[in-house]
């Protein structure tokens, strides 16, 4: 039975006891160091940390609403599908990002189940990627 090893960047103990307890997952260990170093500020778990950031997020949401409104007006005028995709992408990238940061940080901190934490914390990344894909497909048309 292995002793209680704290996982470090070099050695992550195998959870299962038995003949394979000393298998070193070096690749996962390297990823630890790489990922937890630079990643402290990336996710939305912190939410809006200061009033400055809240003001910036609100301004971003306002500008994004204006952009989306213009794109929707262009879509209604020209009936051009690519403007609809463009507006959806801009909405996700601006208003979606601001809304996620402002409103989802609180239930995230209070959440218990890791699945919920994972789903919410990755929502901002998914929103960014989805917005980019929408804009990209709007350009391709």
């Amino acid at each position, binding site marked *: 039975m292995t002793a209680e090893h704290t996982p470090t960047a070099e050695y992550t103990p195998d959870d299962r006891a038995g003949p394979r307890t000393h298998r070193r997952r070096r690749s996962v260990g390297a990823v630890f160091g790489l990922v937890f170093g630079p990643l402290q500020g990336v996710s939305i778990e912190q939410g809006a940390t200061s009033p400055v950031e809240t003001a910036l997020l609100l301004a971003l949401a306002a500008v994004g609403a204006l952009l989306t409104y213009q794109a929707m007006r262009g879509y209604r005028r020209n009936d051009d599908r690519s403007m609809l995709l463009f507006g959806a992408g801009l909405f996700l990238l601006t208003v979606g990002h601001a809304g996620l940061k402002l409103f989802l940080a609180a239930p995230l901190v209070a959440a218990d189940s890791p699945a919920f934490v994972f789903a919410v914390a990755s929502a901002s990344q998914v929103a960014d990627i989805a917005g980019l894909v929408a804009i*990209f497909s709007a350009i391709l048309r």
Partner: protein
Amino acid sequence: MIPLQLSEFGAAVGVLFFVGSIVSIVVGGVVGYRAFRGYRRSRQRSLLLFGVGLLLLVSVSKLVNIGLSSTLSSSTLIGPATELCRLAGAVVLTYAIYDR
């Protein structure tokens, strides 16, 4: 910051964030590159502004986020700097839409 226990799940979350950030940076760069190519071909200023705005909105803000969080020790500046980049990108995009 949620206390990410160094478990398999935390590692999966961290890796997914990193991969997601890299993907959005790269895709944003591709879209900006296409916008710049269209600008060079047609000389429309709105395309140039659109490319710069989109790059600022997505790629530069994420790069600023990753860069600041790996170099700075205090994390109070990271959030506002990232959102400032996004706001600047959105403002440039409004210039791009209202230009002609």
